[in-house]
């Protein structure tokens, strides 16, 4: 009886699940390259894209440390990590969208 009561009471907060997913995936969008840590977001992709015709540039990494990098190498690494994580994010999001009640969790 207690178990049935607990199941009936159990609640699922979809907004919280969504917020946690964003936080978890965004934390993982980090890559190590040329000694620095880089957040593989749209800003970094756009910045690197501006420098693709340069052999070497200096840009700030995600810890605000200036790093000398070869933009094409970093761009390729960031693009791969970005898409890996985006695909994982899509799968997790689709699963989350299917979860409606506590019994589906």
């Amino acid at each position, binding site marked *: 009886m207690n178990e049935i009561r607990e199941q009936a009471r159990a*609640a*699922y907060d979809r907004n919280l*699940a969504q917020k946690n997913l964003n936080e978890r995936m*965004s934390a993982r969008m980090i890559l190590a390259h040329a000694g620095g840590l880089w957040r593989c977001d749209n800003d970094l992709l756009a910045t690197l894209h501006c420098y693709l015709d340069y052999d070497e540039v200096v840009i700030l990494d995600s810890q605000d440390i200036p790093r000398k990098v070869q933009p094409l190498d970093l761009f390729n690494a960031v693009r791969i990590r970005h898409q890996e994580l985006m695909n994982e994010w899509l799968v997790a999001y689709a699963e989350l969208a299917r979860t409606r009640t506590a019994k589906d*969790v």
Partner: protein
Amino acid sequence: MSEGACIIASNSGELDYIGLAAISAKLIRKHLGLPVCLLTTDIDDHLDFDEVVMIDERPASKRAMIKGDTHITYEWKNDHRIDAIKYSPWSRTLLVDADYLVLSDLLKPVLDCDQPFMMIDSVYDITGRNSFAGMRRLPDHSIDQRWATVMCFDNTAEPVFEAAEMVRNDYAYYAAMFGFPVRPFRNDYAFGIAAHLLGIPRLPFSMAQLPPDCSVAADDRGLKITHANNVLRWRGDLHVLNKDIAIDPSILEPLIG
């Protein structure tokens, strides 16, 4: 250069920290591919670890934690972290608490970058209740609180450990200065002050943390967490403050796969 993880664990009363460290070691191997060293004061056959280093006993303090509707009091042996740089067999070490569950590759880039020392700067409560909002800064609000739950360092990080040792040796003085209690000793404060003094760069992500009043179950889909009447599913790295996992670490075995 050798890379590996270290877990400091010694059993305390009904808390099987070494059993929990063995599960954590398997998760570290699975998700980060690193060898794991146990730093312990307990003489036993520790077959679940790649290396075992015996460390000296240090003074412990009493600590109370919520357990279901009641609480438990246990000896908190948390005073060894400052000596980890001396004990670690690796030239680049990832030091994690036994109750930090590695369930993703989140920490891999931290090992691969060139900073000699890094630790967690901020945490968030995955139950959405902001339980740790009051711990963003030290109690006198002067400097940010950092978290010694996860640290990454190489052999050149000695100045940080020396600064943390300086705080430990004069803990009452620093407690009065920053407004935290004199007992129990907390690595978060000692290393947080050291990191502040030495201007250690901040990590670009927060650590997921689970408050002690939540219960944890595991299956092949990850962790299922219950708090009040709410349930949620979790599949990433997580620092679990609930002591049930230390009382019965076998509840986490389905995560190993």
